[in-house]
Structure formats: C-alpha cells, structure tokens
C-alpha cells in the first residue's frame, strides 16, 4: 500500500519524457504544480484549476490528462509526456504552419491532446476530433486554424502508415 503522509513531504520518482526524476511532494500536491515548480516543466499551464480548459494537459500512459486534476502521487509508476518531451514533432510544425497559435497559452495543451489523439486514433473522424478537442479552450483563434492543424497531423499520420 503506497502511503504518503500529511505532515512530512516524501520523495517519489516520476517518469517524465522518458527520464526518471525525484520529486519531493505533499500528498496534496497536484501534478501540474510539481511539473512546473519542481521540474521547471512550465509548458503545462494553469488555466482553470478545474479540468475545464485543458491548458494543463499532459499525456499519462498514452492518454491526455488534465494535470490540474491529478495528485502527483497518482502519477507515480506511470509514464508522463509533457510538451517538453515533444520537440520538433510534426504536430508543432502543423500548428505553426496553420497559424493556429496566437497568445500561445493554450497551445501546449492542445498539442498534447492532439498528440494523444493522433497516436490513439490516426483515423479519427470529425466527430472524434471534436470530442477530443472540446476538452481544450482557446480564446484567441476561433478554432478554425487549430482544426486545420489537427487535420494536417492526422493526414500525415495516415500517409506515414505502410500500405496494408
């Protein structure tokens, strides 16, 4: 039984972007805060603290998660990918080339969600894209360019697959 007690902080290992990191946490600490303040992984952004906006999205064991809605201790033993672990990916290029970025604050969350989607459902139809992407709010773009970026990525994924 994993235990983390209230009075003292404990050292735990987190597997982030393929590397193991020691973090010193309270059981009440949220994954978002640990990533940002202990590991300097500030790509995940606080937006609502409530799981409503997706700005803090990271990928945990292949699934998009609101890191504001996860205790850090829940992430022990899982594989976490943040935007920092996704350098030079075609997704980032697609967001740039489709002009899907303005203030940029929602961008890492969108990209992480899009990354998980393209890995899970490269054949995603419009309905699935919409279902997934509705988890993220953007206030600048009006979503059209983001939609185009997501579609570009899925197309690239499809093109990359060997013919069956």
């Amino acid at each position, binding site marked *: 039984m994993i235990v983390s007690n209230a009075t003292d902080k404990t050292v735990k290992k987190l597997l982030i972007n393929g590397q193991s990191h020691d973090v010193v946490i309270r059981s009440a600490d949220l994954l978002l805060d640990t990533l940002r303040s202990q590991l300097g992984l500030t790509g995940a952004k606080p937006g609502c603290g409530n799981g409503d906006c997706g700005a803090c999205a990271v990928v945990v064991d292949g699934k998009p998660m609101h890191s504001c809605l996860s205790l850090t201790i829940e992430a022990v033993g899982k594989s976490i990918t943040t935007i920092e672990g996704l350098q030079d990916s075609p997704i980032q290029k697609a967001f*740039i080339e489709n002009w899907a970025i303005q*203030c*940029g604050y*929602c961008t*890492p969350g969108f990209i992480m969600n899009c990354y998980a989607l393209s890995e899970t459902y490269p054949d995603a139809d419009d309905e699935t894209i*919409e279902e997934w992407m509705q988890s993220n709010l953007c*206030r600048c773009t009006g*979503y059209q360019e983001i939609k185009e970026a997501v579609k570009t990525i899925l197309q690239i994924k499809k093109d990359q697959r060997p013919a069956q």
Partner: protein
Amino acid sequence: MKYYGTTVGKSEQRVDVVGKATGKVKYVGDYHVPGLLHAKLVTSTEAHAWIKSIDTTKAWEVPGVRAIVLGDAFPYHIGPILADRPPLAFKKVRYYGEPIAIIVADSEHQGKLAASLVEVEYEPLPVVNSVKQAFGPDAPIIHEDLGNYTKIISNVYPVPGTNIGSHIKIRKGDFATAWAACEETISATYSFNLSDHAAMETRSTSVEINPDGKVVVHSCTQSPYTIKKVLNQFFNIEVGDVVVHVPVVGGAFGGKGTVQLEPLAYLASKAVGGKMVKLQYEREEDMITAPCHIGVDMTIKLGATKEGEILAGQYTFLIDAGAYTDQAAGITRAMALDCTGPYHIPHVWCDSYCMYTNHPFATSFRGYGHPELTFGIERTMDKFAKQLKIDPVVLRLKNAIKPGHTSPTQSILTAHNIGDAAKCIERAKELIEWDQNKETLVDENIVRSKGISLFWKTSTTATNAQAGVVLTFEADGTLNLNCAAIELGQGTKTVLAQIVAEKLQMNINDIHVNMEVNTQYDPHQWRTVASSTTFLAGRAALLAAEDAIRQLKKTAAIALQCSEEDLEVGGSRVYIKSNPQHAIPFKDVSYGYKFPNGHAVGGQVVGVGTYIQKHLTPMDKETGFGDVGPWWSVGAQAIEVEWNKRDCTYKMLRAVTVLDGGTILNPRAAEQQMRGGMFLGLSWASTESFVFDESAITQNPNFRNYQMIRFGEQPTEYLVDFVETPAADGPYGARGIGEYGVIGAAAALGNSLSRAADVELDHLPLIPELIWQTKKESGR
C-alpha cells in the same frame, strides 16, 4: 502603385510561434525563484456590507505565514480615470470577491489555507443589483464619498449623492426640432449583464523592493508604464525607481490594460521587507476579483424621413461599471463619442452614464464599448428597416457615413481619417450572398437565415499617447528591435519587424525582435491597447529605420568615398544607386567603418524613432465637441445561422468580416485577428454572461459554469476580406485592426436569429432559452 512589397503585405510567419509551439516561451507565472513568497487574497463573501471586524488569529497559526496585510495599510483610493477604489477594501466592501486582506506565506498552499481561516464580520447593506436599480430614485448609495474622489483625467463627471460615476453628453445639431420633424421614428431598449475576458492566462505578477529602493515588477500587463504611473501617483515611489518587466502575455482582450493586482503585490512585498512576492490569480479570482467586462442597458431612438434618411438619434446608455468606475468611465465616453455608429446623423443627443452597482468592477474589453454599442445600433437599424419596409443593407448604405460628414463630437471626416463603409458592406453582402435566400426552410423545423451589421470605431487614446522604437545592430549586420509594445497574441511584434525590414529593404529574418519589455531600457509607450500599436509603434519603427539608414549611409559614404545622396540600402548592404554592385555590407558599417590601417570612423548605428498622437483634444463637457481619435476604422460583418424552430437551438454557419484596415501589413496575421475577434464576439453574444443571485453574488465565476464556445461550436466557416483604403497617417497606409473583428459580431448574430425566429432579440446572451422566452412572451 504600391511603394512597398519586400515584406509588408506578405504573410510573414510570426516571430513568436516556435517558442510557443514548443512550450518553451515563459509567461510571467512560469518563473520560479527559490525564496519566492506567495500572496493569497481573502476576498469578500458579501456584495455590499460594512466590515465590522477582521480576525486574523487563526490565519497566523498556519506555518509559513509571514505577513497579513489589511486595508488600513493603504486606506486611499486609486483608479485610472476616477480614483474611487481602495486596492484593499477598508470599512466597506462593494462587490463579491473584493480583496480584503493579503496573506504572504512561504508557499502557496500555506497562504491559501491561512486565507480561508481569516474571519471577517460583515454588516450587510442592501445591494444594487442592476443599472436600472442604480439609476432609480431610491437606490442604496454605493459611494458615499463620490464628491471627494480625485479625477485622474479631465473627462469624468461623477454626480455626488447618486450612483452615477460619470455622465458624458453629446449635443450635436438641434435634436428636439429635428425629432419633431421626423416622419418615422423608432425606440428600442437593449440590455445585457457583465461578463468576462477569460484570457487563458490568469493575471499574475511578482513584486520586490530592493534595498536601494527600486521596485521591480514582473507582470502580464498591457500597460507597464501605467504600473509605474500608479505606483508613483498613489504610492509616492519615484517613477524612475519602478522597473516593470513584461514577457509575452497569454491573452488579454483589454482585461490586462488596467492596474489591479500589482499594487496588492507591492503592499505584500512591503509587508515582508521587500522580498519578492508572487500573486497569481486562480481562475475564480481572475473572473470576479479582477476587473471584468461591462454590462449595458441602452435605449436608442432614431427618426427619419419616410424614405429612410435618418435625421435624428437619441441614445441613453446605462453602463454597468460594477463597484468601481475603472475604465468603464472611459468606455462611457467612448460609447458616447461614437454613439451613432457609422451613420451620418445630423442631430444627436446622447447621455452616457457610468453606473455603480454591487457587481464585480469592469474595465476595457476588446472594442472598448463598441461591440456593446453596435449591438444596440445595428439591431435598431434592422428593426427600422423592417418598419420602413427597406432592405436592411439598403437602409445602411443610404445612411453610411462618408468623408465630408461629421462624427457625433463634430470631428470632420475626410478621405484620410475614415474608411469606406459602403464598400465594406457591399463586400460583406457578396460574401454572405445576401441577395440569395435571406431565409430558407431547410426542413420543417430548420430555418437558415442571415444577419448583417456595420460598425466603426475610433481609438480614444490619451491625446499625448506615444511610442518609441530603438534599433541596435549585431556585429554580423543583423539588428535588434526594441519596443515596449506587448505581444499578447495579436502578432504586433511581427508586424513591427516587417515595417523595419521593409524600410531597410532587408530580410525580416535578420531582425531579432525582443519579445520582453523592460521599462528601464525600452522607450516609453503609452499602452498596448485600443488597436493603436501598429499605428503608434509602427510610425516610430519607420522613423527608427530611417534614422538607422541615415547613420548607415553617413559611414558608408566615407567607406565608399561618395556622398550620402548617392547611397541606398537593401539586402543588408549600403550600395551606390547608380551602381548597385558597388556596396558595403551592414556589418562593415553598423559598428563604424574600420580602414585597412586600423583607423575607425562612424561608430555604431543606433536607430531611434518616436511618434506621438497629434491634434487630439478632450471633449467639451456640455456638447462633447472635440477631436477624440486619429481615424475611424469601419467594417461590416454578417453571419448565417441554422435555427431549429422546435427546440430554439441553432448552429452558426458562415461568419463574414470585411474591414477597411487600410493597408494590410500581414494578411494571414490580419485574418487571424478578424477570425479570433469574431469568435470572441460570437462567444460573448451567444453564451457568455455572469449570473448574479438576489444578493449580487456571482453564481458562475469559473469555466465550468461560465460557458464559452468550444471547439466544434464555432461557425463552420469564417470568411475574411479587407478593403484597403490607405490611411494617410498610418505606416505604409495601415490602420489599427486588433479589436475590430469583435465589434459587429453580436449584432449580426442578433439580427440573423431575430429574423429566423421572427421575434426581436434584444438581450444577450442569445442562448436558446432566451429565444424560447422571447417567443413565448410575444405569443409566437
């Protein structure tokens, strides 16, 4: 013929996107420094009450608490227009969410726990829960001391003994006589509640006070120099002792233009001996403790001939400023000075009131009163067209404002200071296919319909608003662009780089744009608001480039043994006009020229340019007379909706924006702004509103319950086009465009849905329930 084209007019990739796409760019809340202390606020749980007592005993027992600051630490009022707001409430609270105390603690969770343990005893007062109530005869008075508040700018007229924070008047022509002569008249009332900017990045700041007295502020502000001004004006700190740093900002929409949390962080830092203190709002605080977006109740009366020539207009605006006037006092003025919309109306009577209520206080929102104003104007134009049996587009064209007309404040409009309203609406009409099927029955329940709106706006900057640009060179001949314009998503820094690159005829990639603003070394800039940066900073950038060219030529003339007049710049070289092969690269002259024998001349090139507004005046108190803005941008918007008769739900299909933005410097970036603006306007109009209970407590201060348009709910298509009537004063003929996409969106949506549902929809947000309710009340 175009006299530009190297980079201006091209869709250059934004300079900020690689950092943003990789999550590497740092926003102010991303900085963590060991030893940083955290401030947490105790906020009011009442909307209007006397503070009887504040007990901090239990809060002090929380480990890590270093200071608790109460209102008596600074019992004075601040404000950008009328100083009516204590940064921390003392004696009285005037809205739910108002800061009462600041906890400073080692860690955020300790501060938060301590904040929850502060016990405040209130004596509740009757609340003012609407502008109508505030304006009524028996309303509780929210500011007993209204007559004693300091006016920070001249155009603010509070009425002591009432809840009127300011009253702005427009009196143009002879309204009463003209009105009496009108053959057709219409009167209509519109209203909507306060709402929020909801930028994705919540407001955040850190402040430290160094032993030498320097106050160092990091903030996500649109107005770094205003922070300096506020700390100087109200806190008696030498203005030169305040240094403000601003990295890129995660969206603002006007909400980060005013100064609210920095004074709190300053008081917090002061309470712990000047240590660095961070104050980062959680979403709930960002929505109601920090300033929000105005509500309005307005009545519009228009009078015209039978043929639809509008002769007279009367406008009464009750603006819900919430508990403090802040920028709502300026919006009250802005709505008055553009009250007619882009129509030639010779006789105008306008009373614009900035009303206190016990709601969260409001500040500027993208469009500065114009999206709100335009909703009323353009809904009325549609109704009037119906009454006059004229096509709504025809009525608008008939009355559209043109050079030779005057604005409500009697500014003379010329071909140089106003865009082409008629051309905009004609183009919008084409894009939305106005003449085809204004209403179509798709099936027995689904109606497709269209709505259109025309709009204008001038930017009411300070009359001495200004900007500056400094260009320095690297040893390789590339250059650095320094300017205090804030990058908040609008792409302003890219456009400035384009202006410089165009003037210098060089590759834009050889310009390094400094994204961060530091008030200590960047030249002063008024603010990054009011769609003014392309104009003000753009003109400064042009002059800075010209200054650099002059210096480059001077040194190159020595190196190339010719006169400066013989020289031209291009491709990061200075060359002889008559023989372009004969040239010297920038890198050999930008740090001075070194002769083969080692002697050097010229010195480094530093290009400096500044620009200040000219010929603007305040408004006359009784008539509004004055030259209030440098130019008016005009535009037209339209939307097609698919509305379901049976359940009153709807989908947005095509959304059109046509703007006369003067020369469009970067088409893709400009389209981004138009789409994003339209989206913001449609989201506000269709779903956004604060909900207050009978005690004026905000019911939905979070994204769970304050709903915005999500992915997939946006219009299926945005169509954007520009009319490019060059602005004589603008850099390469450009006008400001940042706010414009938002302005006519609510009106166009209101018009299309009113047509679809065959009822007059005069309130926002346009949720299906509102349509259902309106239909029910009108018996349809």
